[in-house]
């Protein structure tokens, strides 16, 4: 198994690949990568993608699945035998209801 120190550059490499990509309505502005421990204690790569705000409540599922599939393919090409998770974050984040009431 790869050590965390080996995983960091692989995560950064995946993030660099994803940055600027477009999958339908999902336009990726920026990406950060992190090595995390998953539910079973196994190391995993997490990518947090800052993407253009959705036109509706959320992004089209097909586009999100395309993005995830493409990232998985890139991980497989790099022979990265561990889980890679992608979280999408909108560019504009509204306050949450409880934060608004606390302000």
């Amino acid at each position, binding site marked *: 198994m790869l050590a965390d120190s080996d995983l960091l550059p692989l995560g950064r490499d995946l993030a660099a690949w994803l940055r600027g990509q477009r999958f339908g309505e999902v336009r990726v502005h920026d990406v950060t990568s992190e090595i995390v421990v998953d539910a079973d204690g196994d190391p995993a790569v997490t990518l947090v993608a800052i993407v253009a705000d959705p036109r509706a409540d959320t992004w089209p599922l097909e586009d999100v699945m395309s993005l*995830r599939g493409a990232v998985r393919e890139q991980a*497989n090409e790099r022979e990265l035998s561990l889980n890679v998770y992608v979280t999408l974050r909108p560019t504009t984040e509204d306050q949450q209801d409880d934060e608004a009431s606390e302000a």
Partner: protein
Amino acid sequence: MIREISPGRLLDQAERLGRGTGGRGQPRNGDLRRAVSSAYYALFHAYTLTIVETLVPASPREDQLRLVRPFQHTAIKTVCQAVVGSKPFSSTSAHRPIADDLQSDVRILQICQSFLDLQQRRHQADYDHLADFSRPDTLTVVAEARRAVELLAEIAEINRGRMLFLLISLQTKL
């Protein structure tokens, strides 16, 4: 009276919590986290119910529900990782060629990937204070769970789907 855990109702609950009241702000942090958790559990229960309903369709409902109980999250995860290739079975495992073959069905690939994604998000939602949840992202998680549940019903009709279910059953420790 038997009150089953309904994947459909869990998904509806997740959607309700994820959408919020429709006010100006996003839903509360706790509601977004519960939405993600419910979406994952909807998929988990859909998996186990579909497996049992497919493998023993003629059994009384109570027996099916007893058989569902021992299924473990880790068993499903192990098989899903093998199918998507993030953690293949060992090269000497008799099940490895089967898992490799299952990759050729895009629906199975998607169901397995969704299970892994949702389990990780559920873990974050319940334990990670630093994890950030937004309404659009949460609604994507719910939509992904809903799609995976629909696909489970589809693959129950095909041989590769039943192979997936059998692999998961064999990983489950009684």
